[in-house]
C-alpha cells in the first residue's frame, strides 16, 4: 500500500494527522481525548515507512476536526505533523502544525508543589521554549516526555 493510499483511504469526513513522530500516535490519541469509550471511529498506523521522516505514525479520525488547543499540544510532541481535513474522501485543507507561544490547559505541571496542581480555579499554562515548555506559574521546565504531562480529563 502506498503512502498516498494509506493517507486518504477509508475516511470520508474528518481529520488525518500525518507525519507524526514515530511512536507518538497513542499520545496523539490522548491529546484528542480518544480512548476505548469515546465512540470515535479511529484508525492508527504506527511506524509506517516515510520518505520525509524515515518512519512515522499516522492517525485518522472520522467526523472530527481538531481544536486549536489540540493542534498546539500536538505540535509539541509531533513538530513535523501535517493536518489534513477530509471531506467526501478528498483532502480539502492541509497544513503543518506550528509551535504556539503558550499552551493553556491540556498539560499538567510535573512539579507537585506547583499551585496549578492543587484544587484552585486556575488552568495550567506553559510558555513554549525552543526545546521544551515552561510552567508560567512555577517556572519548571519540561524538555523530555512532554507527552507524560498530558492531562487526560
Amino acid at each position: 500500500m502506498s503512502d498516498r493510499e494509506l493517507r486518504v483511504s477509508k475516511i470520508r469526513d474528518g481529520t488525518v494527522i500525518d507525519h507524526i513522530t514515530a511512536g507518538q500516535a497513542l499520545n496523539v490519541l490522548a491529546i484528542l481525548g480518544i480512548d476505548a469509550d469515546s465512540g470515535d471511529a479511529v484508525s492508527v498506523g504506527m511506524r509506517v515507512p516515510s520518505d520525509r521522516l524515515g518512519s512515522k505514525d499516522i492517525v485518522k479520525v472520522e467526523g472530527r476536526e481538531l481544536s486549536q488547543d489540540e493542534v498546539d499540544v500536538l505540535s509539541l510532541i509531533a513538530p513535523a505533523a501535517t493536518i489534513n481535513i477530509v471531506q467526501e474522501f478528498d483532502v480539502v485543507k492541509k497544513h503543518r502544525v506550528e509551535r504556539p507561544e503558550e499552551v493553556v490547559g491540556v498539560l499538567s505541571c510535573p512539579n507537585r508543589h506547583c499551585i496549578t496542581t492543587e484544587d484552585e480555579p486556575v488552568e495550567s499554562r506553559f510558555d513554549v521554549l525552543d526545546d521544551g515548555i515552561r510552567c508560567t506559574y512555577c517556572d519548571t521546565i519540561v524538555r523530555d516526555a512532554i507527552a507524560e504531562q498530558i492531562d487526560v480529563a
Partner: protein
Amino acid sequence: MRHDHIISAKQLSRADIEAVLDRAAEAAADPEAFADRHENALLGLCFFEPSTRTKMSFTAAAKRLGGDVVDMGPVGSSSVKKGESLADTVRVVEGYADALVLRHPSEGSAQMASEFVDVPLINAGDGAGQHPTQTLLDLYTIRESAGFDDLTIGIMGDLKYGRTVHSLAHALTNFDADQHFVSPESLKLPRSVRYDLHEEGASIREHTELDPVLSELDVLYVTRIQAERFPDESEYRAIAGEYQIDTETLEAARDDLTVMHPLPRVDEIAHEIDDTDYAHYFQQAHNGVPVRMALLDLVLGGDR
C-alpha cells in the same frame, strides 16, 4: 515603578530596583518623613506558612508608614477555613485591605493569587520559587557595603531549594556582577534558574568548593543546607560541614569581604564571625524594614 504586583525578581529592571533602593535609603535616613505617608492604609497579611520575621518586618514597615495590618492568623485557625481555595481567600481579604502580602508553600501561588485581585499583591515567598522582597533587601545591603559595579559575589549552600538564591541571582543579572555558585553536587541551581541566567547572558560559574574562589569575592552570600533534603543524617552531616565558615575559613578572604545570610542560620556561619567586619547579616535583616517601607510606599501610590 509601575508594577501593581511584586511577584518575582525577574520582573524588576535595574531602574525599578534602584528606585526601591533609593527610596529605602531615604526611609532609613529620615524615618520621620515617612511616618504619616500612608495613614489609614491597611496591609492584609496572608501567611499560609509560618514566617515570624518576614511578617514582623512587613508589620513594622506598614506601621512606620502610619498604616496598620490585618492578619488572617495562622492557617487552620477559625479565620481561614481549611479547604478554602487560595483564590477565594485572597478575594475575601482584598475587601479588607489596600494591599496584600502572601506567603504560601506552593510555587506559583503568588502569580496565581495576583490574577484574582485588583489591589497590589506582594509575594513574600512561594515555596521554592521566588522571594523578591528578600532580594531587594539583599541588594540594598550589597549596594551599601560593596556596590554594584564590578561586583564578584559567591553564593553558597542550598542553591537548589533556596528561593532567596534564585531571586537574587535573577536580580543580579541587571548589574555588572560575576556570580560564583558554590554547592554540593546534589544541591546545584535548578535547571530553570540556570536557563534564565544563560538567557540573560549572566556571568556565572559553578563550584563544589569555596576555596578556589574565596579570595576573589566582594560578597559571600551563605544559605542554610537543610537536613531534610538528605535521605539520612550522616550524609547531611558530611556535606553540610563542607559549607560552614569560620574565621579560619576566611583567612584567605579579602579584608573587605561582606558576608551575608538571609537568616535564620543554624551553624553555617560560626558565631565568632559575628563580631568581625565581615558580618553584615544582622544589618541585612534590619534593612528589611526600610526596603519594605519603600516597596509599600511605591505600590500604595507614594509617587510625589
